[in-house]
């Protein structure tokens, strides 16, 4: 039975890809596209883990299976692929290169889902390579100057990464004497081997300085491809690190420092670079880089202090799931935005996009904030020297992400992503909304999905809104500043004073009109009546003054007795 389930999980996307070669079957394949990841999803959700199936004849003795950790990575990946496939179907409906895209998409899906199921190094490497190389076609799809450049950069980094992996896995197998990933991860590998593996997977993860390919590729790829590149494939890098490195077994202090430092630089440098980007999807790409900096902090800490790994791993799995859903949601949302025709519909999508943006930026009680709080707790067992800095970096990363999200939403309006004509809007809006809702509901679902691994999340503090608020304030200030620099101070001042001037002018107009009306009436009414009005006005004024006086006195009396009891100062001294 597990064998059949595995066959279905890997064989479905692979078989559909091969079917695309038959022109007659193409319509069927596109209709079935969003069902392709479902066998893998079902296997992950309902399969009893761990299990393994040995296929002695395949490759160098291939072992496939699923364990508790791989399962936590496979579930969000399969969800993201499902949503992206649904979007791809409508996005590519009128594209003349649709078949090529579908082929690359399905091959990449096979590789991405398959690598979570691989238990031995060659099989894992095969799926990893399948995913990486076939994504070239996704990045290149538009064939624009931008896409060509991005694809060239992408394939260069992929090659470098694959070579580092070949060397790293080869050395690891040589040192371990076993092809199994579990054995490799249990062996205290030599430092060069670990460094090679880190470099190979670091490319996929996009940690600086291996990130150069990522934002352009995510920006240039069609929307459904960007969603899986960012949502699902980046996580393959993290999973590779989790599956092969002897984290928790041996300490690599030097490498740990390098990875931690790289993580910290990544978080902020990605902000600085992303804030300069104008294409909204590229901004999202930089946000992914920044988020993976957070992940790198966890890995770096575990490299320095192996004792912390037990606590860090479940948090990293949660952060990966959180980022997968939220970021893929944002990408599909950008696509949904791009295909709307009316400004009102665009505004509606923008408002909806605020939800995943807030999740990512660390809105308290939602997955981003919970993940960060849990990571802070988990790293309590990490290297003590680094802890304050890591805590600070995590806090500031919230500010950074908020700023990038603000930039993204603004740029969405200024530079609408390219979209094919005549795309059926629902095909994008529905997957986007579902992913965003899944991301929002993640803290509630996670205990059911992850079981005991969800413990750190359930116990995490709700998080503070301050980074978010600070980010929002800075974003507003930046918006004002940038506006100012664009149009000049006098223009800004005139903008600011314009409402007041308009109001003043309107009041003036009203007064003039009133005076004229009054003068007309005055001319029409008999002088006696005129006298009566003058009297009456005086009376009215007197009544009004009296009322105000009563209110003032009464109000003062009402407030006075409550004074000693109010303000409940204790509430302000919260945690």
């Amino acid at each position: 039975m597990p064998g059949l389930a595995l066959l279905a999980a890997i064989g479905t996307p692979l078989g559909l890809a091969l079917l695309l070669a038959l022109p007659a079957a193409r319509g069927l394949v596109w209709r079935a596209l969003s069902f392709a990841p479902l066998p893998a999803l079902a296997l992950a959700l309902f399969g009893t883990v761990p299990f393994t199936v040995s296929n002695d004849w395949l490759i160098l003795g291939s072992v496939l299976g699923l364990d508790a950790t791989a399962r936590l990575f496979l579930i969000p990946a399969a969800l993201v692929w499902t949503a992206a496939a649904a979007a791809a179907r409508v996005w590519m409906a009128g594209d003349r290169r649709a078949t090529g895209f579908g082929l690359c998409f399905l091959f990449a899906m096979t590789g991405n889902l398959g690598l979570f199921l691989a238990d031995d190094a060659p099989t894992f490497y095969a799926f990893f390579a399948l995913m990486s190389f076939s994504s070239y076609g996704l990045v290149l799809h538009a064939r624009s100057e931008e896409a060509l450049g991005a694809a060239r950069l992408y394939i260069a980094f992929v090659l470098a990464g694959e070579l580092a992996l070949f060397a790293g896995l080869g050395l690891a197998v040589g040192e371990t004497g076993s092809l199994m990933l579990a054995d490799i991860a249990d062996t205290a590998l030599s430092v060069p081997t670990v460094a090679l593996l880190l470099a190979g997977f670091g490319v996929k993860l996009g940690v600086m300085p291996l990130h150069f390919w990522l934002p352009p590729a995510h920006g240039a790829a069609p929307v459904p491809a960007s969603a899986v590149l960012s949502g699902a494939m980046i996580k393959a890098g993290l999973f590779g690190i989790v599956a092969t490195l002897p984290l928790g077994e041996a300490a690599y202090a030097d490498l740990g420092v390098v990875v931690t430092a790289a993580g910290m630089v990544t978080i902020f440098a990605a902000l600085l670079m992303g804030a300069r980007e104008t294409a909204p999807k590229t901004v999202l790409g930089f946000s992914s880089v920044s988020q993976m900096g957070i992940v790198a902090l966890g890995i770096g800490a575990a490299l320095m202090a192996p004792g912390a790994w037990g606590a860090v791993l479940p948090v990293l799995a949660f952060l990966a799931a959180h980022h997968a859903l939220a970021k893929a949601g944002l990408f599909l949302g950008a696509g949904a935005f791009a295909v709307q025709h009316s400004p009102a519909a665009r505004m509606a999508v923008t408002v909806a996009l605020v939800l995943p943006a807030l999740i990512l930026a660390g809105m308290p009680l939602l997955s981003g904030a919970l993940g960060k709080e849990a990571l802070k707790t988990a790293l309590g067992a990490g290297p003590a020297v680094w802890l304050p800095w890591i805590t600070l970096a995590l806090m500031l990363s919230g500010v950074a992400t908020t700023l990038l999200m603000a930039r993204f939403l603004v740029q969405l309006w200024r530079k609408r992503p390219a979209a094919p004509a005549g795309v059926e809007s629902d095909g994008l809006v529905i997957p986007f909304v579902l992913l965003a809702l899944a991301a929002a509901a993640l803290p509630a679902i996670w205990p059911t999905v992850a079981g005991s691994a969800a413990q750190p999340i359930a116990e995490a503090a709700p998080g503070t809104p301050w980074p978010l608020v600070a980010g929002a304030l800075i974003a507003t200030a930046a918006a004002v500043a940038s506006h100012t620099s664009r149009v000049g101070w006098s223009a800004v001042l005139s903008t600011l004073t314009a409402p007041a001037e308009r109001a003043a002018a309107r009041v003036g107009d009203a007064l003039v009109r009133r005076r004229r009306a009054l003068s007309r009436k005055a001319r029409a009414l008999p002088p006696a009546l005129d006298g009566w009005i003058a009297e009456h006005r005086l009376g009215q004024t007197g009544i009004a003054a009296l009322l105000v006086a009563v209110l003032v006195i009464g109000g003062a009396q009402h407030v006075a007795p409550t004074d000693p009891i109010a303000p409940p100062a204790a509430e302000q001294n919260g945690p």
Partner: protein
Amino acid sequence: MIDMPLLPLIILMTSLGAAPVLLALPERSARLRTGLNLAVAAVKVALVIWLAWKAAHGVVYDLRLSVLPGLDLHLQADPLALMFVALSAVLWLVTTIYSVGYLERGPHRARFFGFFSLCVAATVGIAMAGNLFTFLLFYELLTLATYPLVIHRGTAAALRAGRIYLIYTLVGGLALLLGTLALWGLAGTTDFVPGGVMAEVAAERPAAAQALFVLLIAALGVKAALVPLHGWLPIAMVAPAPVSALLHAVAVVKAGAFGIIRVVYEVFGIELAQGLGVTGPLIAVAAVTIIYGSLRALAQDDIKVRLAYSTVSQVSYITLGVALAGPVAAIGALAHLIHQGVMKITMFMAAGNLAEGLGVKKVSQMDGVGRAMPGTMAAFSLAALAMIGLPPFAGFVSKWYLAQGGIAAGQDWVIALLLGSSLLNAAYFLPLLHRAWFRDATPEAANAPARRKISLWLAAPPMVTAGFVLVIGVLANAPFSPLEWTRFIVTREFNGGL
């Protein structure tokens, strides 16, 4: 099943006997020629399967015909011989089918198929030679039988290429003759024996043993295209596509590499070779060849020349694995002998199809050819990705074993060499794939007069061999896969040597 002690001889005679008949057939009886060609090739595959089956069940084949006292014509079917025979038999069948389509209505078909058959007979003889003397005979026969194939087109360029080819290989053959005589004089025998026959000589006269090693390797290195003896190979690219395919996959280049395997393992013995200090320089030569060939390939615009330089590089993997002197590396080397053959034959046949169907001979003309010839280009792409060493294709398996062999031999730098080579492989193959699949055909190319639909005779063979590339990689661990067979051979060689 009945036992046939003469089975190796019968296998040799299938193609050797067919050659004169094919030469004598009148030019116009095309149908008869095709039928004969295919029948013989198919019978041979069947016979080889039978031979392998018997050999795997412990039947020993050993045929000797005494020429001089102590100098025999010696045919045998050890596992190593079987491996090479099987490779040549299967690829010969495929290439024959391809040639029939390729030479349709061309001139001099009788000559072509006659020498083609002779060429394969020589390869079988080289494979099953039980001593260096027999090896030498077939090695020279191969040189002579290949020459008419290289100059088949009869153009000035072809004649020049043939001349250069002949000069290189005849000088190499002369060196091999000298080496064989020297071996006979020094060791008193030229037999291939696991563990080698040179132990006593080396103990008494190490310098002579070293000199003999250098002479033999240099002689074989000409055909194996070791730098700096590789000059003929890229020039010989003027030959028709099926000839190039066979030359690069099994016949000439592999005969050299196969000879190096025999000399290192069964004339000297790997331990002795290490003791003599000659494996180190051989590793160096192989390493230089691997990198040099790839670097030259980068600069070539002609598809076939690029493939030729790639062969220079890839065949040296075999030499490298042999010289690394460990069982794991040896598995990589022997597996690569097969894997490289299957991958390269696919690429050459695909390149031939591009030239025939679209008139595309240069890398710079390859824009959009994937759409025009999807089957051919799919086969080509699969083989190219395998060459780069991507799993789960054949090339990955041999590269993986070479890397593990390097680690096992304590030579971790081999990994760096393999990485460099893979990077260069990617650099000269991926642009072709990019052009073929991800660019649109230029308007002139789309309306070129050279465009014609290729027949199934041409279209099918590369797809079949591409299927092999996939299957022997994906099923590398299955019984009777090339890798398993290689493991079996290596167990034998290393037990014999220890």
